[in-house]
Structures are given as C-alpha cells and as structure tokens.
C-alpha cells in the first residue's frame, strides 16, 4: 500500500460542502423551536438605570423577555478569564465580573442587556424594539494608549490595568543597552482586527425535562471546553447531562474557541423556558460582539554592535483587552507574545513588559496567530530599521543573527528543538530572485511606480501544548489531546478526536495517519468530532495544535491497537507476540506464510468464539473488543519557522499598494498532506496581508464601532492578491511522534511585517497598518514636504 502520509489526497469532507449538504448550526431547526434576539447596548459605557419589558412581553408571539436579573435569580455565573497572569509586583491580574447579561453597567457597544424569545424570528425582532432600557451614559474609554490615564471603568481596577507583566532579565538587558555601539528605537502599532469567520456565530439550546438532558448546538472550535466552562463556572447544568454539539462550523480563526454570553444564555433559556431556543448572529452583531484580535501599541528598541550583532532587545507594550477579560485574552498578549519577540535570532538579553488594559470596546482574544503575529511584527520591523541604520543589507543582517545550534535555549522561555533558518531563507531569496530586485525596481521607476521588497524571517511556538508547561504559566487547563480508535467488528474504523475541524481538513489528514499506521483504506475510516456525547474529552482546535497534539494522540492510539493486535495474532497464529511483524494492515509471522489481516483480528476480538484448533483467539485474560484511547501530552511546543519575501509596487499618485509577488518558504516539519498545508498557508497569508493593507476595526472617540459591516470593514477579496509562491524545507519536530510542527497560523504571523517592510522600503517613510491608499499617499506627501522644507 502506498504511503498516505505526505500525499496530496483529495478531501473526504468536500462533497457535502460542495453539494450544499453541510450542516451548520443555523441550518438546524428543532421541533417546537423558539427564536431569540438580543437587546444590546448602543453605548460604549453606561449605567443601566432601568429595563422595562412590560410592552415587549405583551407583544404578539412573545414567550418571554429575560434580563440579567433572571440570570442572577437562577444563579448563573459569569464568563471567565481562563489564564491567570501574575503582575511584576507579584499580584494577580484583576478581572471584572462578566455577567452573560449585564445588570448595572454596559462596557461596550454590543454588550448584552436582555433577550426576547418569541415564536418566530420576526416577532422576536419586533418585540425587541419595545424593550425600554434607560441608560446613564458615561464617558467611554476607547484609546489603547490613554486607557491608563482615563476614568476607571471597573470598580477596584485602578488605571484600568488588568496586569502589568514582565518577562526576562531587566538588568541584563539594560547592560546590553549600556554597552551597545548603537541603539535603534521604534514605535509600533498593531491594528485591531475582526476575525470574520464567514459563518456568523449561532447557538441553539434544547432541554429535555424528563431525561434532564441539556443540549447546546453551537459554532464552537472547542465543544468540550465550552461544556466544562458552562458546567463548572456558569453552573448551567451538570456536565454528565450536558451535551455540546459543534456541527459543521464555518471558520473560526480563534473567535470560536470559547463560550460566549450567547451560548450561556441559550443553554440557560432553553432550560428555563423548556423550549428549544435558537439564536443566529447577524453580521453587524458579529462585528460588535465577536472577540476582536491584536490591538497593541509598543515601544521597542534593539542594542547593536557595529558589526551587526544584536545584543539586546527591550519591549514595552500596552495591549487592549476590551471591556472584559475573555477566556484567552490574558495569555494572548503575555505568554503567547512575550517569548516570541526574540524571533529566530540569537539575542542574549531581552526584557518585555506588557500592560493589559480594559477599554470600552469589544473584548479582544485570540485571533489567528494570537500574540505571535504581534511579536513577529515588532521584531521583523525593528530588524529592518536596524539594518538600514547600520547601513547593512537587510538579508545579511538577519542571517548574521540567526540561531544555528539546536536545541537552542532562548533567553526568555523557549527551548527550540530544531530548525535550519539559513536553509529556508536562502531558498526564499533564490525563489524571490532577490538578486534581480534592483532591476525590477528600476523597471517600476520607469513606469512612475515605487517598488519595495520586504523580508520576514519568523518563528512561532505552537502545537499548544505541554500541560505541565502551560499550567505552570497560569493556564486553567492542561493542553493535552485525546483520541480513540474504535474498530468495528466488520473491520472499518471510527476515529474520535477531541479537536474540531472547521476548515482544517481533519477528516482527511487524520484518516491519512490512521490509514498509514493501521493499513486500513481511507474510505473505511471515519472521523468523529464535535460532539461531547461521542468522543473522549478533548481540548479543541487552536494554536496550530490539532495535528501536532491531536494527530499524535491518534498515532499513539494506533500504536496501542497494533500492540493488542500483535498479541491476538500471536495467539491465533501460535507464535510469540514479540515475533509478530505488522505491516500494511497484516500481522505476519516472519519467514512463514502465516498471517492475519487487521480486519480478521478486529472480527476475532469482537467474536471470540472457537477458531478451528484455537479455543479463543484472545490470549487468556485479555478483554474482548478492539478499541484504544490515548491522551497525548507533548514534551514541548513545536517551532515552525520560515522566510517570507514580499515585493510591492506603490503608485505615488494614488498611494495604492499592489502586492506584486509574495514568496514563502516554510519549515513545518513533516507534512501529512501538502495540498492541505498549502491551503492553510494561502488563507493565513490573505489574513496577514489583509491586516497590513486593508483591515482595521475602528472605534470613534465615543466608542462606536465605525467599521461594523462589510461596507466599512475592508475584507480582502480575490483581486487583492497575486499568486503566492510556496516552497518548504523540513527539519522534523522532535517533540511529537509525527515530526510535525503546525501550519495553520504561519501565514498570518509572517506576512504583515513582510508586506509593511516592503511598503516602507518602497516609499522611504513610515506608515502604520493598514497601509491604505490614503495613508500611503499622505505619507509620501508628508515626506516630500519635509524634504522640501529641509532643502
């Protein structure tokens, strides 16, 4: 049998999506279902002085109108921040209460105030207009940079400061700076983004009063964790009688990792009203209430030797957490960010300080890359600036500082197991024809265009990951993963995973692993995920972890199947288990013609009757059945790395930037399905280039989200991109049995600085993301004005 691992296998999941037979949450309709509409705050910061639901309750078709008071009466807990960060003074982070429906204060436009449940969606919408909420509007705190100097928005949280966290040896870093030949400083803004999965969030609660079972259908990347949080912290329903189903989910990108207020409220309302209650988000609602991403402002500096050696790095960041601390909000700008500011460079001393602040904006949480794009953006931008100020070639300067010995213990947190950074950078430079850049630049100039080239050599830490490590850093849960391989008596296989696929193609890649390990044809393998009643408890999909952690759990469960199979085969074939060889789905006694297929073994395991001379196929004392579970907890994060090179052409008369070529060479370790990996890179690049050139979530000074629809928030479209050039190098990961590193986030992590370094190279002056035509045009104009003044 040809090896499946490494093959471009077409996807098993495609047909249902291509024929319109996907089953997303909004597609599900339950018998006797009711419809919910949320009343949301129109103000960024206000005190609720009264809620009058009388009229709405009498409106046609209305079943009930629920507010935070009813939620309190039923003792439903609030939403939680799942990762404890300790400030540099030793105190714990400070997080405000986060009720699923606000009672006293609203803290961002879109915050949840009340719920109308009616017989039809139209009736619920009409009645929502009749709910009268009185607000005393307060001055909103919106700006990331000024949050600490503004009014306190949550009682007891001085300066709106959630945490003031540090990482690294400050004294050692200062020493590097005092002995530096040169110091380069830079101010960095990482713009706020809206994840914008194409499927808006949705949630349906369904309660069965006789069995006391509660089911929640929801758009989740992580149904088990959602159930755990809703059982343990929101106290909605005991875990064993609570089923969370995440059916087909139309993209997540981090925004669907955690339970939202709407999930809590749907589960609770269904139980309270004893009716199924369905809520489907509209797009503007989604802009207002989905967690956003990024939103950092940073001051950073590097200490340099004249020969181009980087000797130190200092980073001072303010991270906007929004109105409340969402589930992974506090780890994203700390442990997912701070350790990565070193990039893939051998920098001996570094210090990173991050202040997490509350503002009256939508909560900010993990978005594709989560912390690592922000880290990569600052190190790659300042590396460019430093090279220019030293008068060195930007590529040479990077190479001078690459890590070359592995494993490499960085001065902050990570111990990087493997990599070969010269290999991918050299390959990328060749593929992008760096040598020919000056000629292309001259050609562009002849057309009146400004051409620039930008590099981004990056590393990320993913495969999130080792429980002992993350729990020692404050995580509320371990981040292992589970798998169960269940042979059916007829020899086909059900594979259960605790991860969730919402575009990542697990049905295919995970089946490829099982096909290779067990010699079962792809069509006889079915992946089951997204239902807490089916598979074992799992930790879900985010942080490019599904293959490295979840795939490894599957691989480990396969090993256990083979081990049991060998014992059974040995008994049936009258050989010793240690003599049995397993290959391509057959258990063989070497140098004989004695063998059993894995299908025969499965059959025998379930029907252990008499087999000819053999009384039972199972060795004495062995349990029947062929089903194995594995929980895999890796020994380290994985460290994908790569080199991205972008060339842009800017029209100085309009400021419009065209990405002319984009080249990337990534090292993701071993690839299971290169076709799928390529798709992941493309998608990540589009989101990263989107951040650099188009996307921006903009709040005005009163806290209104100005960019709250696709009319105002610029989503990248097909005609915004060139054809990406993609290649790979490979140093297998040593931290998992598959040797894989993770590829889901790399494109979004690497590309913003590659694009922005190219834009700045082209126009010769700084500009912040997104580098829209207007901003670039103004930057060029300012530059020529100041040049004239200087002259």
């Amino acid at each position, binding site marked *: 049998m040809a090896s499946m691992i490494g093959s471009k296998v077409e996807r098993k999941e495609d047909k249902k999506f291509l024929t319109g037979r996907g089953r997303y949450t909004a597609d599900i309709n339950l018998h006797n279902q009711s419809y919910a509409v949320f009343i949301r705050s129109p103000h960024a910061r206000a005190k609720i002085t009264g809620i009058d639901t009388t009229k709405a309750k009498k409106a046609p078709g209305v079943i009930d109108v629920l507010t935070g008071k009813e939620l309190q009466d039923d003792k439903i807990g609030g939403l939680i921040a799942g990762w404890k960060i300790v400030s540099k003074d030793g105190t714990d982070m400070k997080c405000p209460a986060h009720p699923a429906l606000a009672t006293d204060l609203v803290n961002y436009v879109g915050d949840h105030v009340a719920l109308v449940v009616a017989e039809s969606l139209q009736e619920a919408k009409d009645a929502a207009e009749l709910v009268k909420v009185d607000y005393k509007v307060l001055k909103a705190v919106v700006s990331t940079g000024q949050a600490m100097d503004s009014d306190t928005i949550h009682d007891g949280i001085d300066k709106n400061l959630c945490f003031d966290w540090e990482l690294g040896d400050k004294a050692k870093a200062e020493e590097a700076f005092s002995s530096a030949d040169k110091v380069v400083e830079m101010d960095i803004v990482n713009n706020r983004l809206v994840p914008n999965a194409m499927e808006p969030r949705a949630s349906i609660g369904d309660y069965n009063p006789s069995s006391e079972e509660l089911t929640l259908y929801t758009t989740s990347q992580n149904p088990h964790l959602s159930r755990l949080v809703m059982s343990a912290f929101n106290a909605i329903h005991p875990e064993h009688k609570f089923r969370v189903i995440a059916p087909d989910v139309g*993209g997540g990108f981090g925004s669907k990792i955690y339970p939202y207020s709407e999930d809590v409220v749907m589960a609770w309302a269904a139980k309270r009203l004893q009716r199924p209650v369905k809520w489907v988000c509209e797009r503007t609602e989604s802009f207002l209430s989905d967690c956003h991403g990024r939103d950092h402002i940073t001051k950073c500096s590097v200490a340099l030797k004249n020969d181009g050696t980087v000797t130190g790095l200092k980073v001072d960041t303010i991270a906007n957490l929004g109105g409340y601390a969402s589930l992974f909000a506090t780890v994203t700008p700390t442990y997912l960010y701070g350790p990565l500011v070193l990039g893939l460079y051998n920098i001996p001393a570094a210090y990173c300080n991050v202040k997490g602040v509350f503002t009256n904006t939508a909560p900010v949480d993990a978005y594709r890359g989560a912390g690592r794009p922000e880290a990569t953006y600052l190190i790659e931008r300042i590396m460019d600036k430093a090279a220019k100020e030293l008068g060195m070639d930007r590529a040479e300067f990077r190479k001078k500082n690459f890590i070359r010995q592995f494993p490499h213990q960085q001065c902050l947190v990570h111990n990087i197991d493997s990599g070969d950074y010269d290999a991918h950078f050299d390959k990328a430079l060749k593929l992008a024809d760096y040598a020919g850049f000056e000629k292309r630049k001259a050609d562009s100039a002849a057309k009146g265009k400004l051409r620039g080239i930008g590099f981004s050599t990056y590393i990320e830490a993913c495969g999130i990951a080792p429980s002992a490590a993350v729990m020692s850093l404050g995580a509320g849960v371990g981040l292992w993963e589970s798998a169960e391989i269940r042979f059916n008596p007829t020899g086909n296989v059900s594979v259960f995973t605790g991860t969730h696929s919402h575009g990542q193609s697990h049905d295919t890649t995970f089946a490829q692993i099982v096909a290779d390990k067990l010699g079962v044809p792809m069509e006889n393998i079915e992946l089951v995920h997204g239902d807490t009643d089916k598979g074992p408890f799992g930790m879900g999909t985010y942080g490019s972890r599904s293959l490295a952690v979840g795939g490894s759990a599957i691989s480990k469960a396969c090993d256990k199947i083979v081990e049991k199979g060998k014992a059974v085969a040995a008994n049936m074939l009258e050989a010793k288990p240690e003599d049995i060889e397993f290959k391509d789905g057959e258990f063989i006694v070497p140098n004989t013609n004695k063998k059993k297929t894995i299908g025969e073994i499965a059959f025998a395991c379930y029907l252990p009757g008499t087999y000819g001379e053999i009384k039972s196929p199972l060795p004495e004392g062995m349990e029947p059945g062929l089903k194995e579970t594995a929980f895999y907890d890796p020994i380290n994060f994985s460290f994908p790395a790569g080199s991205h090179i972008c060339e842009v052409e800017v029209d100085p008369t309009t400021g419009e930037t065209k990405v002319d070529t984009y080249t990337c060479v990534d090292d993701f370790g071993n690839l299971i399905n290169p076709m799928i990996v390529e798709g992941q890179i493309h998608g990540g690049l589009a989101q990263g280039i989107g951040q650099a050139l188009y996307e921006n979530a903009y709040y005005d000074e009163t806290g209104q989200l100005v960019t709250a629809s696709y*009319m105002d928030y610029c989503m990248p479209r097909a005609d915004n991109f060139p054809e990406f050039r993609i290649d790979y190098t490979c140093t297998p990961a040593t931290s998992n049995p598959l040797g894989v590193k993770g590829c889901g986030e790399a*494109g979004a992590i690497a590309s913003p600085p590659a694009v922005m370094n190219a834009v700045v190279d082209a126009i010769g002056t700084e500009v912040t993301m997104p580098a829209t035509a207007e901003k670039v045009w103004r930057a060029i104009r300012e530059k020529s004005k100041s040049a004239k003044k200087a002259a």
Partner: protein
Amino acid sequence: MAKLSLTVNGKKIEKEVPDNTLLASFIRENLNLTGTHVGCDTSQCGACVVHVNGKSVKSCAMFAADANNSEITTIEGLEKDGKLHPVQESFKKHHGLQCGYCTPGMVMSSIDLLKTHKNPTDDEIRKGLEGNICRCTGYQNIVASVKGAIGKV
C-alpha cells in the same frame, strides 16, 4: 402576502409568503434548502448566490416575490444523477474550499463567470469573484478551481 409560482432545481413550487420575504430566507426557511448561506446583511459576501434564470444573484438582496415565475438553481440542484457539476468537481480537485461556508455562493458565481467568460485570464477570474468573500482559502485555490473548469461549463 405574495403568491409564488416558480421552479427550483427543476421542481415546480407553489407557495404563499409574506411580501417582505427575501429570496434567501425563502430558499432556506420555506424550502429547507440550507446550502444557500447568509454571511452578511449587506449583500457584500456572496455566500447566498443562486441562479435566477441562469444568472447569478445575491439572494439576500432580492425579494422572493420578485422571483415569481422564474427558474431558480441552488447549490443543491447542480449534481446530476449522482455526478458533481464540473465546477464542483474542480473545487474538490484543487482544494478550492476549506470550511465550506462561502463555497455554495462561490461555486454558483464561478459557474456564471465561466458562462460569460469562455476562457478567462487569472485577472478576470479574480475580478469576477470580487463579490464573493472567502476567509479561509486566500482565493488562490478558488482561482485554480475555476481555471480547472474552463471549457467544461
């Protein structure tokens, strides 16, 4: 109320719906054809594209009543005798979809594009799909999928 008489995926349909029913809601809620998706409220994303009399239309921006007497094809109506439409086939072959949410609209728009442009360039394909947003694929494999179906529509 609007009395509707129309053909959907080759099947004659007679239904009465409120005047303000959008075609997208009619298809999803009244006909239970949930392959047509709604991804925005502003007719920007294209997840709801269907064919009305052979032309691609954003069904969230049209009243069901305005589709009276017309012939509608949704994503569910493309497969014939258990065989995928060549554009569906090409999306599968070129990994032109990931989460699948934008896919129905993307496929419907691509078919229309290939009907109006017999041999489109990459640029024409990219511009032709400007009304459909995909957040997963970065569009490259969608362009490849459309190219792969040239001459087969």
